[in-house]
């Protein structure tokens, strides 16, 4: 997969991170990607069939754009919904 990305899109991958969860430091949450201006998300089909999945992502930025890198070289913007994760629903407010 790393080779494929390098050949097709010219992206060299040094480190793979399986999640972009925020971490806690001095009672404050931060994201390791907050200081960087961009990151790549690779979504693998979990099955061998034609498959649809609703992808949910936590963003380290407040203002961002999501583009899909296609094999033909184009990178169209992806329309996305904002949502609140269910863990917040029951928090005592």
């Amino acid at each position, binding site marked *: 997969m790393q080779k494929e990305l390098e050949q097709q899109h010219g992206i060299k991958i040094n480190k793979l991170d399986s999640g972009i969860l925020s971490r806690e430091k001095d009672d404050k949450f931060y994201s390791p990607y907050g200081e960087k201006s961009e990151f790549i998300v690779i979504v693998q089909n979990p099955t061998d069939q034609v498959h*649809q999945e609703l992808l949910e992502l936590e963003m380290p930025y407040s203002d961002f754009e999501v583009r899909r890198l296609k094999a033909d070289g184009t990178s169209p913007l992806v329309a996305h919904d904002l*949502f609140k994760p269910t863990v917040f629903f029951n928090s005592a407010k």
Partner: protein
Amino acid sequence: MNKKYISFPVRFDLDEDRHVYIIKKKESTDKPKSLTQANSAVDVDTSVAKDPNFLPASLGQTLKYGGKELKYLGLVQGEKTSISRTQTASNLTSEIEEEMGQTGAVCKFEYKDTVTGLTQKFIMTPRYYQSAEAKDDGDGLYEFRPLTGISKLYSQVDKVEAKEGDHSGQFLITFQQKEATNDTDPENNHVAVRRVVAAVELSEISDFMKFEVTLNEIPIGNYKGEKSKAFFQKQKDAERGKDIVIDWEFLDNFDTDSKLWYNSNGLDMHQKKLWSRKDYQVVETDNVASNFYPVTSAIVIRDKNSNKQVTIMPDRPQSGSAGLRGNKNIELMQNRRHNIND
């Protein structure tokens, strides 16, 4: 930190088994303009993502995604549970009969499949069975033994909110209960405790309606030391052990005919009839636990009067039963908490 969560559908074809997305931070207000202009040759999505916050649901508000519709029909007063079976008189005191009348606000929805035109109204509520707390032969980790066999409303609907996105929409139902802080004057001294939150989701890529039910801590008493069965029987309802089930009640004269289908081993569906066994004659008792079956991947009921079928697929194996409340419901055990163990 003001965190943002986004969701979008990913569609995998046969020749593409992975997708690559680049998420870029927008630096300032000036730069992205030139960026979008430069890329305007590619199909640019100029739509703005909608507010992630839930807004109060309006009466008749309908979510429409992928050939499915879910309409909010408002709050109604929950029906009183009626005794449809021959009760063992030993447990059915007048006090319990009164408690059965305990109802509260519940919310009604209508599901519609636009392809087939099939509609079904339903009510989803958290309910509980009072546990029969006793050493050795009571309710506990090992055995499910309810005291009366009649489930009561666990908490009533506080508010219903809705959120509509481009690809999916949700109704968020918050159930809460008033808990007395003062025994002598509970009417004026109580706090509202959020007990259950349920998100009902429709999305354009899923064939199902998704229920995400989150239960808060189940309230029970805080007793120290070993207590007797007689001691627990004197306690108030709120302080005794509870077995919480999530109940889906189907309206429009739905009749299960006392039948249900389930799969206990995850392989094939088995049919069961309430209060009946193939090997011997079952005497109806208060112990509804004998009608609860392990639901590994699905529980099904069918309407006697029409060709409707309702299938509920839990995301983990749960204990479930159907038709115990007037032959028109499905219930799945979600959580249990007791003062003592069997």
